[in-house]
């Protein structure tokens, strides 16, 4: 398959480019905009100024975390379609706890990030548990939990835990101590300082390499991959499939939740219902384009981050609705669905 993937990889890249530019052009023409103007605004909006580059990297980061989480689950043979809900819950936990319990910086930031990871991890552990204990289909479970996560957090920030000034549906502003450096703010005055290394983008890249190493070079990673690619052989080789499923889902959710926390801590500085424009779903495309390999997912997240940030500019300057980007992303997922042909595993 590795050989086949390399051959298929070139074909897939061509397909993605055709889909993006082809369908994108058609959509732009429908909106009475010339594709040259549309794509021009897109790319210019992604890289034109230092602030725009920073925006692209921030969008890339927001996709990178959930994509890594999704990749871990997919490699374990589990369909985690619930990264969106895990991310939202992580962001909420970070926003609320951070505002609720002011702490000095060296405690506040870890607390906020940890809260996000734990919340997301718990949300991922639920379908993991259902799968491990009952053999329940995690596809439907994660889809249900996505909706429940949105409803739950909406209820909390419009009701009992609402903290926003003027009755706004959000948590209180995050104290400065709990904020991690924001690339966009740094880009306004681009001199390299240590703060650059603490931005979520760098954290995500480090995480990606750590995960790559874990998958490729540890016993845990070996067993996780075996469970994903040949579950029956893995079972007979002494691997506990139920426990692997649970841990993989929890880890997947935790990484996505961490992503939500970095959105809150790194830029938004509060939680509200507009936290995620569907990062958890777009991240599926990112994970697939990256071939479920953490290193390539970094590259893919930058590509999709470019589409996300450029898309905003494209709407503002060329008048092409942003939804074109998401539409194209969905089609890319269909086109690349061949990269994740599931092994013969059954669950209800």
């Amino acid at each position, binding site marked *: 398959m590795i050989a086949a993937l390399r051959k298929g990889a070139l074909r897939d890249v061509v397909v993605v480019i055709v889909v993006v530019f082809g369908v994108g052009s058609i*959509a732009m023409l429908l909106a009475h905009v010339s594709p040259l103007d549309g794509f021009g605004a897109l790319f210019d909006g992604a890289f034109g100024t230092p602030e725009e580059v920073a925006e692209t990297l921030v969008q890339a980061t927001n996709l990178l975390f959930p994509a890594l989480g999704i990749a871990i689950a997919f490699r374990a043979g589990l369909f985690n379609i619930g990264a969106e809900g895990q991310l939202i819950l992580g962001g909420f936990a970070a926003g609320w706890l951070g505002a609720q319990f002011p702490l000095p910086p060296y405690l506040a930031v870890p607390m906020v990030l940890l809260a996000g990871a734990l919340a997301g991890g718990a949300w991922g552990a639920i379908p993991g548990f259902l799968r491990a204990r009952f053999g329940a289909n995690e596809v439907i479970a994660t889809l249900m939990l996505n909706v429940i996560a949105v409803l739950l957090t909406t209820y909390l920030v419009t009701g009992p835990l609402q903290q926003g000034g003027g009755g706004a549906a959000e948590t209180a502003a995050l104290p400065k101590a709990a904020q991690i450096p924001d690339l966009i703010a740094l880009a306004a005055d681009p001199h390299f300082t240590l703060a650059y290394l603490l931005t979520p983008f760098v954290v995500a890249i480090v995480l990606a390499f750590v995960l790559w190493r874990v998958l490729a070079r540890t016993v845990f990673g070996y067993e996780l991959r075996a469970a994903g690619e040949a579950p029956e052989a893995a079972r007979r080789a002494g691997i506990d499939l139920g426990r692997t499923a649970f841990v993989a889902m929890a880890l997947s959710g935790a990484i996505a939740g961490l992503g939500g926390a970095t959105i809150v801590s790194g830029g938004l500085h509060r939680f509200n219902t507009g936290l995620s424009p569907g990062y958890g779903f777009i991240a599926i495309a990112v994970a697939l384009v990256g071939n479920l390999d953490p290193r390539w997912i970094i590259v893919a997240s930058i590509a999709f981050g470019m589409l996300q940030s450029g898309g905003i500019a494209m709407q503002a300057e060329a008048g092409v609705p942003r939804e074109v980007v998401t539409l194209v992303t969905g089609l890319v*997922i269909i086109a690349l669905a061949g990269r994740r042909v599931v092994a013969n595993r059954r669950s209800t």
Partner: protein
Amino acid sequence: MNATLAAVLAILGLTLVKATPLIYAALGGVLSERAGVVNIGLEGILIAGAFTSVVVSGATGSPLLGALAGVLAGMLLAAILAYAATRLGVDQIVAGTGLNIAALAGAAFGLVLVYHQPGASHEVPAFGHTGEVVFIVLAFVVAAALQFVLTRTPWGLRVRACGEDPGAAESAGIDALKTRFRAVVIGGAIASLGGVYLSLAELDLYSDGMTAGRGFIALAAVIFGRWTPLGATGAALFFGFFAALQYSLQRAGVPSQLMQALPYLAALVALAGFAGRVRAPAADGIPYVRQ
């Protein structure tokens, strides 16, 4: 009429209204999965049906033409998934997820294109109350018809054969890929009626996110209905009941989001209870690749 009786009838009536789109979607899912293709894209097909039917009804002034267009749109989306699943042999769950994302974004894009405003369309000619009742009755008729077709007709037997063991079906001379393709597309046509119902029968417009995950609840209904049309209909009624409860309980002061979450929580709980006790068609979700 006695007040409790009125309340009960109201809830029953609301259950039927809420369950109907689920029934259509679930029936489409049953047909598809019995042939061996998991259709995660039901949500996208509902969206396509809902959106297209509104646009065409608004343009032509005829809700009937709108409904027809909605069905065609649903079939088109189903055909994309069916092609990917049968000819390309890709992962059906991932492809279905992509379809949903594309459909939602496509409809949002369409809203801006056609109505120059995001969020919702204008009001269009719709089916009104009689039409709503027709759709509800039709749902049960389709359920019965599908049950009959699957169990008593030659085509139904071949569909079931392809869902259990496409290799064996092919050795009997059946074209498993073509059979699967047809089943998914016909299933898409049925499911899209659920979307048409949402926008043109229950209401008279399309709004962003109006399908609200019903396509996913329908998938749960397929499982709890043990992959039979009548069973899925029953499961859809069950979930519809929870959605109907939402309105009565809301008046009792329970927070609206908790109520809205009821059907999804019900699906989650039932999933845990049912899993492992029901058997899907043996080749469900497994791409068939000819040697």
